[in-house]
């Protein structure tokens, strides 16, 4: 088990460092590139937890699509080449810090409350749980109604975006 612990901490520290980089970067493109490291780290954590399918979905959706759209949008509109010290800052630092601390507190309390003392013992038979087949089965059998609700929500968002962007 200790190998997993070591790997977890290496990845976690890298992720935290990159996350700080995202908020501290003086250039939007750099911030987006730091975000890639954070997402790649969380994909690696999924693999450590045997959730292989979710890990590669994370790579395809978050890195392959969302980050690309971020970069695409930033470069299409501004593409800043120089550091923009001060420009990316605003006066809500204190409020942001309070919200971040609050969120951290809530998550920490709930996670400790739910999982304190539980130890995951990985066995070969558990690989099945993270496979595409079992994920698909639980989405399309057990949780099919929430899934459909989410897809309706996304469709509504899509239609709304098109309606907002239309100029005629």
């Amino acid at each position, binding site marked *: 088990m200790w190998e997993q612990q070591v790997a977890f901490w290496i990845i976690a520290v890298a992720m935290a460092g990159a996350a700080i980089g995202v908020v501290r970067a003086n250039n939007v*493109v*750099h911030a987006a*590139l730091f975000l*890639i490291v954070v997402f790649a780290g969380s994909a690696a954590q999924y693999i450590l937890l045997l959730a*292989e*399918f979710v890990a*590669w*979905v994370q*790579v*395809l959706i978050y*890195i*392959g*699509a969302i*980050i*690309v*759209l971020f*970069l*695409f949008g930033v*470069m*299409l509109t501004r*593409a800043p*080449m120089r550091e923009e010290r001060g420009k990316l800052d605003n006066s809500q630092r204190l409020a942001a810090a309070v919200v971040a601390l609050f969120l951290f507190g809530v998550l920490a309390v709930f996670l400790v409350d739910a999982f304190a003392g539980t130890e995951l013992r990985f066995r070969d038979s558990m690989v099945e749980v993270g*496979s*595409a087949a079992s994920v698909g089965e639980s989405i399309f059998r057990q949780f099919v109604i929430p899934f459909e609700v989410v897809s309706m929500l996304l469709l509504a968002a899509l239609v709304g975006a098109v309606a907002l962007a239309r100029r005629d």
Partner: protein
Amino acid sequence: MNAVALTTLGIEIGWGAALAIKTLVILLIIPAGALILGYVFLLKMMSHMQSRLGPMDPGGFHGWFQLIGDGLKFVQKEDLMPDGADRKVFAGAPAVVLISTFLVFLVIPMGPDLVVKDLDIGVFYALAVSSLSVIGILMAGWSSANKYALLGGLRAAGQLIAYELPLLLAVIGVVIQAGTMSLNGIVVAQQQQSIFGIDWIGNPYILTQFVGFLIFLIAAQAELTQTPFDMPVAESELVGGYHVEYTGFRFLFFFMGEYGTAFAFSAIAATLFLGGYALPWVDGDLANWIGPLVLFAKLMLVAFLMFWARFTFPRLREDQLQAFAWKFLIPLGLANLLVTALFKVAF
């Protein structure tokens, strides 16, 4: 992958050595594949098709020295970096593209046991990591501090987003038929399935998924930014697009990434639609030995089709290119998916 070959020779190797050998083989495959495609298609086939005499000359016999000369030229060139460039991002971009190519090769089986890692979700993984190259291209386009490079990067990103969907849809048809996402499993399924009871040569999916095969080839062509989808690198207007500022070794990285990815996509297409490393009536140890050769032959066939289109079609305009993806290929892919699913349920 070589573990098996070596074990049949009576040599036992450990886990670490096996990993080292696997990594080394993949690292060699990328430049080797790029060289083979560059030599056979870019130099020989294109020269014949377009009556170019230059590449026939160097070294005497059929211009065999041309690519070696090109390589020597690249190594000698000065390593330039534009004045306003973002140095770290500029230097990292070619590496990102090449790493994405490297990662794709990990799941391509060259024989029943000759695969680095036979992932349960092989095809999905391959498409996920191949989409990472867009980030390298955007990094290169932006960090060059050059309008043409930025335009090229943006065009490449817009094009890769648009053609990622038909690519996935084409693959899903195969996955539905095979009932697995593992590339090895797809090869075995093609060997064992039958077409309406005829199991003489199994069921190479090019026969039952012909529409999917065409969509895959077209979308792969666009992913590789090859003509007719080469707006991002259009020489006559963008002087080279996102890699316009790259010289010497860094440009060589992009070149290897491009042709290495072409090699990888041909291998994936050969595996998904032409039966991969398998031949009818061949199995067991023999399949492990001749598997790489069979896969290579099929891969070259697919690559021939892709480069044939590249050398003969004119370039599409940006709006034509986007409309073709969103208004034609994606609906066609969805229809193909529907029909495949219906047949799967009905038979």
